[in-house]
């Protein structure tokens, strides 16, 4: 009679696996919620940019590299963190309603069809702040703790 024993332990293993999975998924969900409650990410620009606010579609068009100037006509320079950076992922999701892989695909389609350029990459938020502060027409994003007077915050509709 070895088979009932085996199937019994298999059942227990399966139950254990399902419970672990539920726990992990719950945990992941809880973590996501925790991140969502973290300090918001601000859209920032070079201090001399005259535009004070952008609507979401324009912001998305600028970060997707389809729109090359600010509404007042000044050339825009887009700065982003790497695709795998969690702040980049949060910015894409919360402010652009897009995912990093979708943005990357949009950039590749622009760059390799002659319809646009790739954004400028920065390694971390210190570099983001420094480049946005010193590049005319620059746009980027920062968490609250990285904000200072060297950049201006652009409000989003």
């Amino acid at each position, binding site marked *: 009679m070895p088979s009932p024993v085996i199937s019994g332990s298999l059942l227990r293993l399966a139950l254990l696996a399902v419970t672990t999975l539920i726990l992990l998924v719950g945990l992941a969900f809880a973590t996501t919620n925790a991140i969502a409650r973290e300090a918001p990410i601000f859209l920032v620009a070079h201090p001399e940019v005259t535009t004070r606010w*952008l*609507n*979401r*579609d*324009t912001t*998305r*068009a600028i970060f997707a590299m*389809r*729109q*090359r*100037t600010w*509404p007042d*006509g*000044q*050339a825009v320079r887009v700065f982003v963190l*790497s*695709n*795998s950076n969690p702040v980049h992922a949060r910015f894409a999701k919360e402010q*652009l*309603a*897009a*995912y990093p*892989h*979708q943005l*990357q*695909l949009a950039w*590749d*389609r622009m*760059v*390799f*069809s*002659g*319809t*646009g*350029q*790739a954004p400028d990459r920065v390694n971390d938020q210190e570099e983001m702040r420094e480049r946005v502060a010193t590049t*005319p*027409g620059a746009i980027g994003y920062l968490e609250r703790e990285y904000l200072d007077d060297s950049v201006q915050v652009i409000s989003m509709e």
Partner: protein
Amino acid sequence: MIVSKSFRWNECRAIAALISGVVMGFSAHAQSDEHVLDTLQVHGFLSQALIITDDNNFFGHSSRDEGSFEFTEVGLNVSLRPHQDVLVAAQMLSRRAGGESSDVEPKLDYGLIDYQMVSNQQRTFGVQLGRFKNPFGFYNQTRDVAFTRPSILLPQSIYFDRTRSLGLSGDGVSLYHEERLATGVLRAQVGIGQAQAGEDLRSTLRLEDVPGTLDAKQSAIGQIRYEHDGGRIVAALSTAQAKARFDSSISEQTDVSFRFRPVVFSIQYNEELWSLTGEFALRPTKLGGVENRWVNDVTGESWYIQYARRFASEWQWLVRYDSLTSNRADRNGKSFEESTGGNVPAHTQFADDLTFGLQWTPHPQVMLAGEYHHVDGTGWLPIQDNPDSSATSRRWNMWLFQLSLRF
């Protein structure tokens, strides 16, 4: 020979236009803007595939033991913004997909000046001059860049190689518009220009050994695209017209005119981890100077449905069903076979392809992919790889592996 000369002439013209554009941009803004060179970007890509088939050949002698390595794509592009509203961009492309080794000679893929004259919170509007890529379906503009494809091969019912050169790009002018609506974004593009007719079209028309010249005429393309809710739902309608003419230099062959007028409806639903994509195309083709009614006025039909799923952040798997019918009036190809006296098998008139694919991107600049195709029919099988259609098998299998790099 004459065909390739006219290609080069077109390229010279496009490059000359490009250079004059850059020079104009520089001279107008030489004093006011020292940041022009800061906007210079150089990007490139390289893909190499291995293709193995049990029967039939795809992109080289793929049915031989060792398979075929004759699927290589290499591209290099530069772009520059000489003025805040102007983008100048050009790309050279070297591509081998079976055929002659001379095919790897780099060609100007696009070379254009893009002037975005309206750019505000409601809309953008611009014009492109030069050689521009045709926006046809979801994938045509970057069809040779592996990183923009969901699989190694795009669905061949729509993105097949047989008339590739004719639909790839136009030398002329293109206008684009983006309008932001309350619920989403509407984008439109129209272009008119001189199409190109390469050896692919010549062999598709079975004129590769006939003395004469094949020249492309004017082509037109239009696409309207709606992106709902940040791109969660994307729908597009594209239509094109391309014409070519073969001037025969022997009396046994009459002159042939060729007109291709495809329409494709595209739809995609995107979630964070998966995408569902479908495209449906009608492809009317007219041949003038050919008496065979199974060839001279035919409407083909193509469609596919594709599900792609991302997992573990660097991986994606995909399943797709793709179907091509060469002539809607003869779906099983039997009438066509009869009209050839049984010389050309019926299975050359359709292809149903079930594909499973896997992509791994261990680094943002490196991608490895593998896929399996089970195909019923040879409707999109390249003619140059299988010159004798009576020797092809109706049901065949194909495995592909590809390494892709970009910067």
